[in-house]
């Protein structure tokens, strides 16, 4: 093999110049990423029960949000929809879950979502697999509300109860030919999952999904 040793004629063909550029550009990008990360981590840290009680808006609200009504409404200021946390709402018959209780429910739900491998069929915040519906705003989906197909099939009268029944035997309540399999989800795990989905629906996702359930005639009721 011939190894030619050409002296570089200009800086643009100098390996020394390019290796130093690589170092500086990489270092600069990494420092910027770390600074942005520090800012972002502050903004995405979960809020507290006090924040909710005092109507302090957090991008990721506390698990105690299960005590409140969540809606997804258009904000003229932001140009897209944002979650709105309203008055108290019953969640499995109660609206007085302490922060500790709510956190325990959320943790059980999040752990269940991982150990049951939800993300390899569904998307969560749009990430995952594409075999089943996105779960970002599933809690607010008309399918689970009064008059929706899921309450009808499960014989229940509220989204939380409908989900609780569905998760324990999903293969028995098929809304379409593609069914959800039976993953051996217990009542306790199912309740945690409902809390997890409700809390996820309250996260400020910068308007994703867009126009969620806002299109006329967008649902088959």
């Amino acid at each position, binding site marked *: 093999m011939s190894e030619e040793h050409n002296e570089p004629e200009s800086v643009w063909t100098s390996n020394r110049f390019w290796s130093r*550029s690589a170092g500086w550009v990489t270092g600069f990008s990494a420092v910027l*990423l770390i600074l942005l990360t520090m800012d972002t981590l502050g903004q995405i840290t979960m809020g507290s029960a006090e924040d909710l009680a005092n109507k302090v808006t957090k991008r990721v609200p506390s698990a105690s949000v299960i005590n409140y009504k969540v809606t997804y409404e258009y904000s003229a200021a932001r140009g897209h929809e944002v979650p709105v946390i309203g008055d108290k709402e019953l969640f499995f018959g109660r609206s007085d879950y302490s922060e500790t209780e709510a956190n325990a429910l959320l943790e059980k739900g999040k752990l269940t979502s991982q150990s049951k*491998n939800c993300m*390899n069929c569904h998307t969560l915040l749009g*990430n995952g697999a*594409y*075999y089943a519906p996105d779960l970002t705003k599933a809690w607010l*989906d008309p399918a689970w509300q009064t008059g929706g197909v899921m309450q009808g099939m499960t014989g229940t009268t509220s989204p939380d109860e409908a989900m609780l029944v569905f998760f324990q035997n999903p293969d028995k309540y098929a809304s379409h030919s593609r069914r959800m399999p039976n993953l051996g989800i217990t009542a306790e795990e199912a309740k945690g999952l409902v809390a997890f989905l409700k809390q996820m629906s309250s996260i400020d996702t910068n308007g994703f999904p867009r126009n969620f359930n806002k299109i006329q005639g967008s649902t088959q009721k």
Partner: protein
Amino acid sequence: MSIATPKYLSQSLAMKYFFVAVVLFGAQLVMGLIAAYQFVNPEFLFNVFNFSTARMVHINALVVWMLYAMIGSAYWMLPEETGIETVGVKLGTLGFYVLTLAVTVVVGVFILVQVGPGTDASIWLINEGREYLEAPRWADIGITVVVLIFVYNVFATVMKGKRTGITTVLMADLIALAGLYLAGMFYTSNITMDQFWWWWVIHLWVEATWEVFVGVLIAYGLIKVMGANRQIVEMWLWIEVTMLFGSGILGMGHHYFWIGTPEYWWEIGALFSALEPVPLVGMLVHVIYDMGKHNGKVNNGPAFSWFIVNAFGNFLGAGVWGFMHTLPQINIYTHGSQFTAGHGHLAFYGAYATILIGMMYVAIQRRNNIEEMRSTATSKWAVSLITIGVLGMTVALTLSGYVQAFVERAEYGATWDGYFIAQGATWFTQGIDWRLAMGVVTLIGFLLLVKDLLTIAKRSKALAK
């Protein structure tokens, strides 16, 4: 020029890594076909071997076979670049067996146990349930230890032997690659925080450190296969590193549009990820330039074919298909649709599978002291069928993704009903059918590839006599 080299233990170890990589590649395709068929017939293996399980093994086999082939490639080129046997190669061999045992246990548990109760124990022992990082925590720790052995071996060898531009980039890249894995090894109930750090591993691997690794392999490959001038090749490598890290590190912003992270990521993600195709164009130009300079004279036909498919595939799959939906204005409709699956298929294939298969051919040629290894009919059929298969899957999934973007998202406002209406739309299901057919084409190409990898050395030797 002679390609005869001493029989390095490091290169024997590399062959072991390549062998397991090919086995896992096969597993990836079989699992992909099961999942693709379940899209067409959802009752297939329902409640026995669900889509989630097939898909999990599909994507994990992908990641692991690529890591195996990357480690194999590094162990292969290390003695040639440094001029000495790899330091700690025996420890490296032990690491190989430990890693392979661990991978076997993890895959066995994935296939047989599948899911566990919603407890910490499941995360530690069965399945972490985070896409691409499903390996349970015990395996995470094992993988980290084995990778640290590998990184130590590379560093110790380069320090002791000759240091080149290629090995310098390799060392820097491996430190980043290994360190980033740690960002994925914790549990939090905050899904936004979870996905924020999850992307540190996924994005900074596949859109930064892995791409730089590819740059290293192209540099080495062009020198060995075409006799390209090292100084020029290494200059290109440094330019690629500058551009890949310059765009890729902050390009991470395109994953932070919709997961609960602040709005400023829209601008950062849009700008830097729009720049991400630039280095891929550079890599394509680099390969074509060198090919022209050497009048296409190569000593390894099949490896060179795979390098060419890499240059185009990386640009198309990662560059064009990535850019298509990277701007937030478009991504709000395509995020979480088959659009992403289309991009994923061509990008992983074009950027990584191709170059790693090329490296296997380089290793086979040099291991057997074959001065000139020409493509066989099987080599040509293999590269053609796999490329047509993956390209076909990509186009099919992209078309299905369009239907989702327009029907599910724009027309029906992304509801549960909207999702299933789009999934049932004729143009969507046609895409899904074509994806399955093209998956079969890919599998046939893979079988021919295995045959070729096993027989080409013998055939080339017989031809030389």
